[in-house]
């Protein structure tokens, strides 16, 4: 097992290297000189030159041959890419072009909002998706099954941002039940502890604050959770059908166990394994879906942050945000694979 973990961790290195390469190359290949982007087309040549000097843009892109001749191996890596990489590895993602703040600091401030939303969305998808999938499997071929499966298919066919708009229109504008945007009413004072507002409210024992934060979470997490919900329903159903045909389920039935016990104890436990993978894989989808959902709900997480940066062409933020999300996604996938090994002792890693 530990050999497997080490091998998986080593396998991450080429992928992370590739991600950093792509994030570094794309804007440079297409947009050209970052100094011109920052200062604009009409900037003085001398000013541009000074900024290039400051940002290290006068160095070669990948390998510094002059540096190699002067200083050896260390000089070879005195280039833009390796500077970008070594800074990124230390968590330095550059500064916002307009606000001049550290991208890293803004990211740290906004990530908890996205994290809270993603967790709640996934929770919503799980507690509805698994029972729905089980019900569909138990009623295979009947009207109920067809209905659930069609709903699941519809769930992956909505544009997320459209569903978000419809939800706001129905539940905020028309019915007035839930707030249309933001994380908390502005009348509340925010003294962040964890920056996860529901948790903060609970920690302080502030019931009104907690309830208000939960109210704000309902619509965005439904919008964001719909796609994973649909995927979980389909996965649970097909996994459940497979398990129900197994010998041990038949044995459990033959020895006279009650249907509920057979389903919950024997079938569902085994059927949930592939569902866990799907949850892990959907988590990445949530992070990119957050860009759309957070934009519609003005939810101050990294999705909204990246959207605003796109509108303002603030490339360091786009770059930092993309790099961060891809990194998280890779890590989550690794954790899913490892948890698989822990949950299912039959899986042997050699």
């Amino acid at each position: 097992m530990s050999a497997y973990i080490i091998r998986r961790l080593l396998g991450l290195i080429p992928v992370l290297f590739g991600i950093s390469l792509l994030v570094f190359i794309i804007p440079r290949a297409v947009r050209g000189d970052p100094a011109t982007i920052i200062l604009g087309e009409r900037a003085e040549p001398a000013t541009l030159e000074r900024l290039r000097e400051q940002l290290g843009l006068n160095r070669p892109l990948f390998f510094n041959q002059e540096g190699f001749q002067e200083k050896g191996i260390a000089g070879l890596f005195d280039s833009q890419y390796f500077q970008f990489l070594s800074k990124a590895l230390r968590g330095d993602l550059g500064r916002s072009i307009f606000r001049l703040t550290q991208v890293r600091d803004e990211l740290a401030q906004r990530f908890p909002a996205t994290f809270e939303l993603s967790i709640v969305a996934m929770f919503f998808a799980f507690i509805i998706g698994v029972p729905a999938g089980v019900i569909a499997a138990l009623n295979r071929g009947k009207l109920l099954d067809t209905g659930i499966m069609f709903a699941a298919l519809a769930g992956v066919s909505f544009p997320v941002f459209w569903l978000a708009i419809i939800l706001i229109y129905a539940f905020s504008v028309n019915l007035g039940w839930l707030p249309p945007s933001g994380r908390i009413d502005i009348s509340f004072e925010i003294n962040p502890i964890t920056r996860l507002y529901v948790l903060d409210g609970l920690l302080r024992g502030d019931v009104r604050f907690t309830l208000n934060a939960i109210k704000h979470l309902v619509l965005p997490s439904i919008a964001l959770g719909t796609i994973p919900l649909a995927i979980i329903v389909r996965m649970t159903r097909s996994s459940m059908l497979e398990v129900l045909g197994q010998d041990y389920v038949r044995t459990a039935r033959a020895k006279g166990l009650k249907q509920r016990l057979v389903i919950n104890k024997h079938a569902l436990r085994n059927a949930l394994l592939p569902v866990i993978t799907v949850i892990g894989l959907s988590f990445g989808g949530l992070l990119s879906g957050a860009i759309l959902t957070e934009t519609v709900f003005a939810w101050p997480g990294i999705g909204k942050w990246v959207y605003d940066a796109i509108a303002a062409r603030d490339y360091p933020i786009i770059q930092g945000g993309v790099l961060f999300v891809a990194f998280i996604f890779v890590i989550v996938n690794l954790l899913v694979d490892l948890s698989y090994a822990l949950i299912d002792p039959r899986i042997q890693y050699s």
Partner: protein
Amino acid sequence: MASTVGNSSAKASKGQSLAQDALKRFFRNPTAILGLSILSLIILMTIFAPLLRPGDPLKSNLKVRQLPPSWTMSQADLDKKKITAWTYPFGTDVQGRDLLMRVLYGGRISLRAGLVAVIFSVSIGMVLGLVAGFFGGWIDIVIVWLVDVLLAFPGILLAIALASALGAGTLSFQLPFLPFAFELSSIEKALIAISITQIPIFIRITRASVISLRESEFVQAAKSLGANPRRTMWLHVLPNGLSPILIQLTLSIGTVVLDMAALGFLGLGAQPPAPEWGAMISDGFGRFRSAPWLSIFPGLAIFLTVVGFNLLGDALRDVLDPRLKNVS
């Protein structure tokens, strides 16, 4: 399902080709029929858009700005605007443009985008997957690395990164050795960005089915008869590995339509006043309290189109992939 399997194998033994058999099962599948009907309807409506709603989808008419769907209006309001209850079934936008006409024309953009992007990514993905799976070795390692890296960007994120790097407006560039410059509109840039995100999926699927076929008996037989590798690859391996590619292709068109709309919504794809569904929802988003129909109708159009492709993809999976028959 079990009876269908029995039937088809009995028929197949009477000398029907695999494709004929699959086609027959396809047309007996209710999911397939539903998906096909929805899509045919949408495709016909967008093709005949100029006949169904003659006029210019970009031309504004300030006399009828932001009208709700005309069948919801009162008779007095209708008289005041001198229109009937069915003049603007989807309402009009802030420039007084007929929303139904724009939704119909928007279908042209989305469907064309879906087809072009998928053809582009399937051709590149299939070749790379074939090469990787068939030849193995270092070329396989490099291609698999590329796939892993591209798939490390979840969902639409890579498309967003690419499209935002390509910037707003028209981009013109010159390739070395070519005497002319290329011009890319914002829709084309979004299309390229989305296509690239689909390539690794096709590489992975093609490679997987090639590897499973590489060691199969008929491929070994072709090899031992002295067929050259390229001939074996194109003639024996690829046709037998097509089913999963075809299924993914159908599902991918739906994904591309959704992603295209998402980029349009984020302002990275089609630019106003182009009648693109995502851009139209984005336009309606700012006014959805007073004019919800601006977002509702283009969204419904996207939904129906994507449902159509997803139904078709599911049906193809049932028909073409016999291993899944007992599962779903």
